């Protein structure tokens, strides 16, 4: 508990309010939205004042202080790094299908809306792998899609990656020192209201992107993060009317195809056998689908991905 000042000259309070009002009116005059009434302007002014004070201290301490807009730019850079190593699969039909399926899944996830939305792309690689970049850019290899035999199973793979995005596991890989750096740069910005230490921000940005890319490509997420994404996947499937057990079916296939000690998915993910056990527990709590899927579901899956 901080002690409150006992006496505060009223003129100083008036000065602060006047400053807030000036800031608020300046913002609203130049702003695009006509917010109109005094109530809004007064409130806005207080908010502007508050954020200026906050920036003066440390504005960024942890992943939750990264705004969705910043998360979007981080995710784009991570995806651009991965796409420098993996080629996109130039198949309009397959990619269109993946986006339709994936964006439908996202609507039933715990985080349906992100700053730039969810987007999906097939990578032209034999490897069994998938990457969920911050903000919702999701990359899946042809090798992993070949482990699937139904739309429900592809949905299980995409929903697992949506789970990583929704739970912000990528941002969790950012080193604490980056937040300190970012906080420092923004504090200077807040104090002078001159903005623009772009060089410093770019350096911190590069480090941040490197932390996440290293985790996605080399180190992998923690066992508990993978379990959480599996659980989110099963729940997401259930919420849409897919079979939550489809995730287990994919893991069964992966069990036979992944080479122990391999460099791809086998290196960055826990053993499928262990994951199956945990997913089974989650599935036990979820209602099975009410009816068997209509033939149209399998037909559209085959039309888009049979040749994968």
């Amino acid at each position, binding site marked *: 508990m901080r002690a409150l000042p006992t006496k505060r000259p009223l003129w100083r309070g008036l000065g602060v309010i006047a400053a807030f009002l000036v800031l608020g009116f300046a913002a609203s005059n130049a702003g695009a939205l006509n917010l109109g009434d005094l109530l809004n302007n007064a409130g806005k002014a207080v908010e502007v004042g508050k954020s200026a004070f906050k920036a003066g201290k440390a504005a960024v301490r942890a992943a939750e202080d990264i705004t969705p807009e910043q998360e979007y730019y981080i995710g784009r850079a991570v995806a651009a790094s991965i796409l420098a190593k993996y080629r996109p699969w130039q198949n309009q039909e397959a990619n269109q299908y993946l986006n339709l*399926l994936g964006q439908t899944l996202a609507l039933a996830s715990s*985080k349906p809306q992100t700053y730039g*939305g969810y987007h999906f792309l097939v990578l032209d690689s034999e490897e069994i792998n998938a990457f969920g970049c911050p903000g919702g850019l999701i990359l899946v290899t042809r090798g992993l899609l070949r482990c699937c035999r139904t739309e429900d199973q592809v949905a299980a793979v995409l929903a697992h990656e949506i789970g990583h995005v929704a739970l912000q596991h990528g941002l969790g890989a950012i080193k604490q020192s980056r937040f300190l750096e970012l906080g420092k740069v923004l504090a200077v910005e807040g104090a002078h209201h001159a903005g623009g230490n772009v060089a410093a921000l*770019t350096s911190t940005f590069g480090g941040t992107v490197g932390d996440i890319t290293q985790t996605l490509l080399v180190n992998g997420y923690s066992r508990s993060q993978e379990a959480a994404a599996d659980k989110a996947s099963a729940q997401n499937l259930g919420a849409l009317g897919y079979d939550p057990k489809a995730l287990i079916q994919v893991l069964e296939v992966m069990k036979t195809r992944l080479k122990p000690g391999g460099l791809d998915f086998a290196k960055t993910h826990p053993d499928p056998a262990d994951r199956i056990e945990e997913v089974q527990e989650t599935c036990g709590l979820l209602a099975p689908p009410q009816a068997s899927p209509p033939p149209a579901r399998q037909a559209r899956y085959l039309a888009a991905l049979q040749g994968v």
Partner: protein
Amino acid sequence: MQGKRWVLVMVLVLGAAALAWAAETMSVQVKEGRVYAKPSFLSKLQATLPYGAQLQVEGEQGAWRQVGLSGGLQGWIHVSALTEKQVSLQAGRERAASGASSEEMSLAGKGFNKQVENSYRSSNQGLNYAAVDNMERGYPVTPEQVDKFVQAGGLHVTEGGGQ
């Protein structure tokens, strides 16, 4: 003395106004804040609001917030598109669009923004940003397509779109 009393009244009025505002106003924190006719992603799209737009929340149902739109219209927006924090200064963004200096631009969205991305890109030519841009724009999905996909596949989107 009279002057001081006026100041006190002003402080109280502004304080109350700020409290009322804080309780009911939220900001759009995504690029396209979609407002629907009903609390469902499959209902009619009423409006698309820009990043930073401020809304008065008038009701709530699960993960959806009922908001007022201009012209007396009302609609529903998913809570994942909203934040209680004030998003960046709209004013800065306006200036940025009209060709302001780089210093002003970084006020538009503090921290990592378009300007930082451009700077990062220019010093890391090997990154495949072209593929990222194509991924974001190359496979658009309309609400009608989602609706058809759900119907034909024997699926259902849980009302409220998850928790």
